[in-house]
Each structure stands twice: as structure tokens, then as C-alpha cells.
């Protein structure tokens, strides 16, 4: 018996010694603002790359910047951006510059991980207003948007003709959309395939004049009559067979279903261009603005910003790097390389000249709604998506009141 106790005591003592040894090194508090280090910088840049083309374009641009300024820059494409960033912040060794997804921005900003550097970039007001709002937290404009995408109505030319429709029939309002969809359905074609998430269906809420939170991201406005109207409209489309979710036609997302010609229309962003070119080069399609709802036009925007870590040792160089990445010329180079839209308004003309078929996406920038701009909202929004998956047989009112309650709890706490 005593022997057992001694053993246990010894084990506990050993554990404590280990704990002390472990904690002794490197767990001290860092000062609130990390001082600038002198000498040439070695910038670490972590990007959530969309593919080979993007990685290479950013690497080339970084190499050019490094050469011109005498610093060095290493671009690392992330496998799982939020997990890798989370680990880096927890380990106190974040990369100096990294992509920040708009939907996650508030989470990072609220815990003080981001350096609010945006005002130090030249012509920092020259970015689209809706994008600047997306990266503003508690009144501070933190980081500059890298580029952006918006949602548009993508129409399959062949199926459109098959249903006896012409270019003049492209719907511009909800009423027109419903009647066009009915015609397509009568021709035996599925009218619309749309993903079952707030990142697509949220556009209808915006068109009806509602949104999940107030513009400053401080109040929950989920149970408004506008939102209810939007969900009821989407529900009626689903019930009448005028719209289906991708999983119902065996596809992972709207673009895949559209490319396989399972439906005549889909609602997706400009990333669909690359997917169609790579996987379904023979399918002809056109892109239009989303039909307007009772409150006018509405779409959603998706964007990343160039985040700079509050704990970076080379903030000056990092800002100079971001400056170089967000010039009009560089943004156009990125646009040509991997099909994103420049976030600077000054680049709009050059872009629409280069890609006239993207006019609808670009126009969306003026009235687009960014993702929910508040921390701790991820699990609330996942819960909302869960409800949207069952929208066809669900009760929109109940879905919204549940979203309202959860949003309130998340914003309050």
C-alpha cells in the first residue's frame, strides 16, 4: 500500500517538474504591441490559394516586391487556412501577412490578432465601400480587401433556347423569375439549382430588404418581415419544383449541377468561370444580375483582405508589401491570372474592358452585402444553414426566430 502511494507521489512529482520545465520556457507574456525589428525583413505570407494559378501569381508578385525592396518574402499556400492560422496565433508565431476571409474577419479582429493598418495604405478609400465596411470592426477600418466576387444569375444558353426563351426573357424581378421558371419547368427542365446555404439564399433576404444583422453588426435583425418574405419566396420555389438544391441532383455545388446541365440556371459567383472552363468547356452560358426583389437589387459579396498580424516584427515591410499587392496594375495582373475582380474602384474600367462578359458580377459590387460582420457567429450561421437545408418542409417563421435568438445570444456575449 505505501509503495503504491510512493509511486503515485513520485509520478505526480515528475509530472509537476515537467509542467514547470515546460512552462518555464517561452510562455511569458508578450508586450501588447510588438516592436519593429530592424534590418531587411523576412516576410512569411500565408495564403488560402484557390489553386496553382493563384499560388504562382502571388509568388511571382512577392518575388518582384522582395527584389525591389531588398527584403525576402516566402509565400506558403495553406491546406486549411483557419486551422493553420489558429495554430499559428496560439503558438505566438503568426505569419506576417495572410488572407483573412470576410466571414472570419470579425473573429480575428475581436481578439486583437489583426493590425489595423488600412489607413496607412495610399488611397485607402479607393476600395469599394461595401468591401471597406466588411473589414471595419467597431468603427476601425482594419485591412484592405484583396479582391472580391459577387453572385450572379448564370443561364445555360442551350437549355434556355430549348424552353423557348430568348434574351429578352432574362428575369429582372422576382415575378418575372417565377414565370420564366414555370416555362422552363413545363419544357421538362429543372429551372434553378441553388446551394442550400445563407451564402446563396441570403441574396434573397437582401433583395427583400432584410439581413441577419444591422449594418454595424451590433443588432440581430433576423426575424424581420423582409427576411420572412424572402424565405417564403424561396420556399415556394422549392415546393413548386422551380428550384432544387445541388444534393438533390447529385452535385456537390451549384456549378457542378449547372455544368452537368441538370438545371437551366444557377446562382453562383465569378469562380464558376474557372470551373466551367476546366470541367465543362462545351457548356455555353451567360451571366446576369440577380433579379430584383421588393426592395430592389441585392447580391452577396465574398472577399478576403490582406491581414497583417498584430504580433508581426516587420509591420513596416508588411504594409509596403500589401501596398504593392493592391496597386491597380497588380490587381489587374491577379485578375488575369486567376479570375478575381479588383477591389479598387479605379481598376473597374480596365477590368470591364478586359472581361466584358463579367459585367453583371462587377455591377453587383455597388449593392452587394458582405458576410455577417460579427464575432462568434460561425456556429449560429451553421445552425441557420441546417435549417435552410430543410426549408422546403420547414416553417420560415420558426427558422428566423431561432436565428434571431441565437444571433442575439452570440452578439450579446
Amino acid at each position: 500500500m505505501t509503495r503504491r502511494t510512493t509511486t503515485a507521489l513520485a509520478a505526480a512529482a515528475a509530472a509537476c517538474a515537467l509542467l514547470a520545465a515546460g512552462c518555464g520556457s517561452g510562455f511569458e507574456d508578450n508586450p501588447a504591441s510588438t516592436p519593429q525589428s530592424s534590418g531587411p525583413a523576412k516576410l512569411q505570407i500565408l495564403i488560402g490559394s484557390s489553386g496553382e494559378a493563384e499560388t504562382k501569381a502571388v509568388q511571382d508578385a512577392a518575388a518582384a516586391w522582395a527584389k525591389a525592396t531588398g527584403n525576402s518574402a516566402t509565400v506558403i499556400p495553406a491546406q486549411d487556412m483557419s486551422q493553420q492560422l489558429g495554430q499559428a496565433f496560439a503558438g505566438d508565431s503568426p505569419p506576417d501577412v495572410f488572407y483573412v476571409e470576410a466571414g472570419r474577419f470579425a473573429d480575428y479582429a475581436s481578439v486583437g490578432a489583426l493590425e489595423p493598418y488600412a489607413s496607412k495604405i495610399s488611397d485607402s478609400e479607393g476600395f469599394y465601400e461595401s468591401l471597406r465596411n466588411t473589414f471595419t470592426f467597431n468603427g476601425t477600418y482594419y485591412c484592405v480587401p484583396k479582391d472580391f466576387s459577387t453572385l450572379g444569375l448564370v443561364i445555360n444558353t442551350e437549355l434556355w433556347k430549348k424552353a423557348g426563351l430568348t434574351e429578352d426573357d432574362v428575369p429582372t424581378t422576382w415575378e418575372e423569375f417565377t414565370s420564366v421558371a414555370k416555362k422552363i419547368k413545363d419544357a421538362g427542365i429543372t429551372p434553378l439549382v441553388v446551394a442550400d446555404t445563407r451564402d446563396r439564399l441570403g441574396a434573397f433576404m437582401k433583395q427583400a430588404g432584410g439581413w441577419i444583422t444591422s449594418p454595424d453588426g451590433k443588432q440581430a435583425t433576423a426575424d424581420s418581415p423582409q427576411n420572412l418574405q424572402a424565405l417564403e419566396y424561396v420556399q415556394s420555389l422549392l415546393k413548386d419544383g422551380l428550384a432544387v438544391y445541388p444534393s438533390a441532383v447529385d452535385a456537390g455545388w451549384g456549378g457542378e449541377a449547372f455544368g452537368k446541365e441538370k438545371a437551366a440556371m444557377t446562382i453562383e459567383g465569378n469562380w464558376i468561370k474557372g470551373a466551367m472552363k476546366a470541367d465543362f468547356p462545351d457548356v455555353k452560358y451567360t451571366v446576369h444580375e440577380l433579379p430584383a426583389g421588393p426592395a430592389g437589387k441585392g447580391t452577396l459579396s465574398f472577399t478576403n483582405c490582406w491581414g497583417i498580424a498584430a504580433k508581426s516584427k516587420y509591420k513596416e515591410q508588411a504594409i509596403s508589401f500589401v501596398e504593392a499587392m493592391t496597386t491597380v496594375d497588380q490587381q489587374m495582373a491577379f485578375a488575369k491570372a486567376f479570375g478575381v475582380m479588383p477591389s479598387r474602384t479605379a481598376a473597374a474600367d480596365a477590368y470591364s474592358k478586359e472581361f466584358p462578359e463579367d459585367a453583371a458580377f462587377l455591377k453587383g459590387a455597388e449593392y452587394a452585402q458582405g458576410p455577417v460582420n460579427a464575432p462568434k457567429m460561425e456556429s449560429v450561421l451553421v445552425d441557420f444553414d441546417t435549417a435552410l437545408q430543410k426549408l422546403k418542409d420547414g416553417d420560415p417563421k420558426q427558422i428566423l426566430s431561432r436565428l434571431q435568438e441565437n444571433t442575439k445570444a452570440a452578439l450579446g456575449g
Partner: protein
Amino acid sequence: MADATLTRGRLTGARGARGTGGRRRSVRSAENLAGWLFVAPALVIIGLFVLLPILMALWVSITAWNGQGSPFTGSVEVVGLENYTRLFTEEGLARQDFMTSLRNNAYYVLVVVPLQTALALGLAMVVNARLLKGKTFFRTAFYFPSVTSSVAISVVFLFIFANSGVVNGLLAMFGVQGPMWFSDSRGVLHLLLDGIGLADIDDPPAMLTESGPFGLSWWEWLSGPSVAMCSIIVLNVWTTSGTFMLMFLAALQNVPVSLEEAAMLDGANRWQRFRNVTLPALRSTMFLVLTLGVIGTWQVFDQIYVMSQGNPAKTTLTPAYLSYRTAFRDFDYGSGAAISFVLFLIIVVLTLGQRLLLRERGGRS
């Protein structure tokens, strides 16, 4: 280990009894020291890589650490047991998600563990049969899924269970229209109740939907595994039964043939021989397989991460995946760690319960 040192200590002690008492003690303590020195590397490694991380995680679970910098500084807010109480007593999304994940995983364990154990035992009996030709081939074939990467198998199953995949193709041959596996969130028990006319799935009885423990209604608790979860259940039974088959096979080969022959002479039929001779001989292996099965199924993560991420409608959400999501997606590391400790407790309690159930009657533990 301790027993061995003890015996050896006594032996040397007896030999040294001819000398003085002082010398006897010093010989013993020298051997003790040597013993500790021998186990020291193992102790250090276990302490550093097992015990220390567990203690650190335990600390994180009582803080509101947001993932910025180290959790072991004065600036991290300590919230005590709040991360735990939120999972059980506070109305809200956190409790609802956690309880949903517990429900999903409980049904998962209830189906997978008996199935995989029965299948593994059956396969082992087949491979162990004296008359079977090509034993090596079957042994390899049955074991194959267990050594293949679970991510690769998950992706293959995604194709097999696709709406126009192999499974639905087979069902169609029998005139059955298969479900949309990975987007069907309806519970199997719900469908069953609906099928026998006890409850309408679109309009469940108000008695069940109005109330229920821990923020979920009785109706939700009684859903059973969802159709989507069923495909993951099939996957897991198929991949793990191979490993357990090997364990059963090893145990079966240890059952003396003479025992079985004696039972045959006594006039026992095939079932009686299995029930009264083979099964009791497999008791300890059975405990091992059931324990490993329960631990493995409560910790299911990679299949969920690859195949469904908790979708559709949270019916494949499990505590392990929820813990990951809470920590790394919501930056709520405290809650994430708390979930994993609750999971740890569940597993420990279940394992102790199994030990109690499977212990041999008649005093021996």
C-alpha cells in the same frame, strides 16, 4: 513491474538476513534506484507527451482562452466550470449542439459496436474453420479494409452512396428507390415509427415535441441514426471488423481442440458447443474487442471530417468533430477542450461498466 521488484527485493532481503539490518535496507534501496532509473526514460516520455498535454488541455478547459498567445499567462481569463455548465445546464446553441452530437454518437455506438463485433466473430469462425480452402486469401481480404487509409475509403464510400451510385443502382434492380444518402437527415427510428403508423414524421405527436431533457425534445432524442449516418455506420463496420477478426482469430486458435471434441462426445450440438465452449473461452478477447470498439466509435472523427462535416442537418455531428469545430473554427478553445473531457469521462464510465458486466462470476476480477 512493481510486483516483480517486490519479489526480487524479498529474495535478496532473505539472503541478506544473515547480515545486519542496515545493509539489508541499502541493498534494497539500491535496487529500487536501479529500477526507477530503468523506467525513467519511459516515465519522462509518457509524462511529456501524454500526461502534460492532458493537464494543459484540462487547464484550457477552465479558461476563456481565445487562441491568442499562450494560455498559461496571467492575462487569460479563468472561468472555472462555466465551459462545462454551458454544455449541460444553460439554454442555448452550445448545449443544443452538444446534446445533438451526443445523441448522434450514442446511436452510432449502439449500432456499430454489436454489428462489428458479431461480424468480426463470424469472419473469424469462417477463417478458422478447418475445412476452408484458401485461408490466407480470405484472411487478407477481410483484413484489407483495416489497413487502407480511412480517408481514401471515405472518399470511395462517397461515390458508392451517391444518389446514382452503386448502392442505389443495386436497390433499383429490386425496384426500390434508394434514398439520397448524404442529404437525407430523417432518423431511421422516425421512419420506422412512421412506417408502422405510430407517428407521422411530418407532424409528430405534440406530446413528444413539446418537452424533453437538455434542450432537445423527446421526439428529437428518439430519432435514431439518420439515413446519412447509416452510410457512415456501414463504412465503419466494414473497415473495423477486419482488425477485430484478427483478435478473435488469435483467441480461437488458442481454444484447445480437445475441449471441443470432448463436448462433441458429450453430445453437444453445434450451437451448444459455440455457446458453452467457444464463447466462454473468448471472454477476455470479447472484453478487449468491445472496449476498443466503444472507444473507437465514441471518438469517430476522420470519416465525419471527410464525408459530411456534421451535415445534413447536424445529424452526423459527433462530440469529437464538434470539439474540433468549436476550438478551431469559433476560437472557443475552452469549450472545445471541455467537450473532449466530457467525451473522455463518457468513455471511461462505459469501459468500467463493461468490465463489471463481463467479469467472471465467482469472485475473480
